[in-house]
């Protein structure tokens, strides 16, 4: 079966994100003060797998081996509905 998957890569809690900080400052300047701002990167991937669980397992391996850097990132993979 073809399984569409959405992978979200974001920085781990506590890792300084200078880009997010700059964006937060710019929003404040525009009159939108924010309590918290972080961003994430989304990947939309379709894989061929016997089950959804097998597809998710492939996606997690993709994160471990390339898409995320475990030193600074966390990731989540889910079947896209």
């Amino acid at each position, binding site marked *: 079966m073809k399984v569409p998957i959405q992978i979200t890569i974001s920085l781990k809690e506590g890792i*300084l994100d200078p880009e997010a900080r700059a964006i937060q400052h710019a929003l404040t300047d525009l009159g939108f003060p924010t309590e918290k701002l972080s961003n994430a990167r989304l990947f939309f991937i379709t894989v061929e797998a016997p089950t959804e669980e097998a597809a998710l397992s492939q996606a997690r391996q993709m994160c471990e081996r390339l898409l995320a850097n475990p030193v600074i990132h966390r990731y989540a993979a889910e079947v896209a509905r």
Partner: protein
Amino acid sequence: MRFAIIQFGGSNCDLDTHHALQDVCGVDTDLVWYKEGLGRTYDAIIIPGGFSYGDYLRAGAIAARTPIMEEVLAHVWAGRLLLGICNGAQIGAESRLVPGTFTINSYPKFICRWSCIRVENADTPFTSSYREGQVIRIPIAHKEGRYIASPFTLKELNTYHRIAFRFCNREGISTPEVNFNGSMEHITGVLNKQNTVLLMMPHPERASEKVFGSDDGRGIFESMIAHVEKG
């Protein structure tokens, strides 16, 4: 004795590094296109600076997963030297040759300027021509050079003297003002456990002749040559 410099698409310090090694230091050095493979054994490999794969995904991430890196890992496992400079350091960290990673500078812009770094460990194949505590002047040029590691890793690096260089001022004192990329503990050069891999953000090839304004970086290449000569 023969050194190799690996060229990826987007490497742009390959020829400068070749000049420093071949013409300035007099060591036979091959330029190796990453798709060609190593083809022979080398005494030392240098992964040069640049923007391999346009820094897509993360600086160094894609180059680190190319087949030639398996040959580079085999070279390291055999106990031979690997120096990663700037993008080469990012590629090396993405290949997990040392723990931690180099990520976007705390001020998230490309920085190109002179920096002073302090030699923290002069008892390595890359730093033996310096003395411990010596301050050397070498330029930096990067956007993703902020070294990050877990507290556990930092402790281990300190305990086993695996920090090669820290940013400092001309007097050799590390302060936030001279830690241009915001690296943890001012670190900008990290060694592997065996001291056979050095990953560093500053560019020694750009400070290898007096005409550049500093030849402080040449000592890294000379140390490597002396290590290989010693056998």
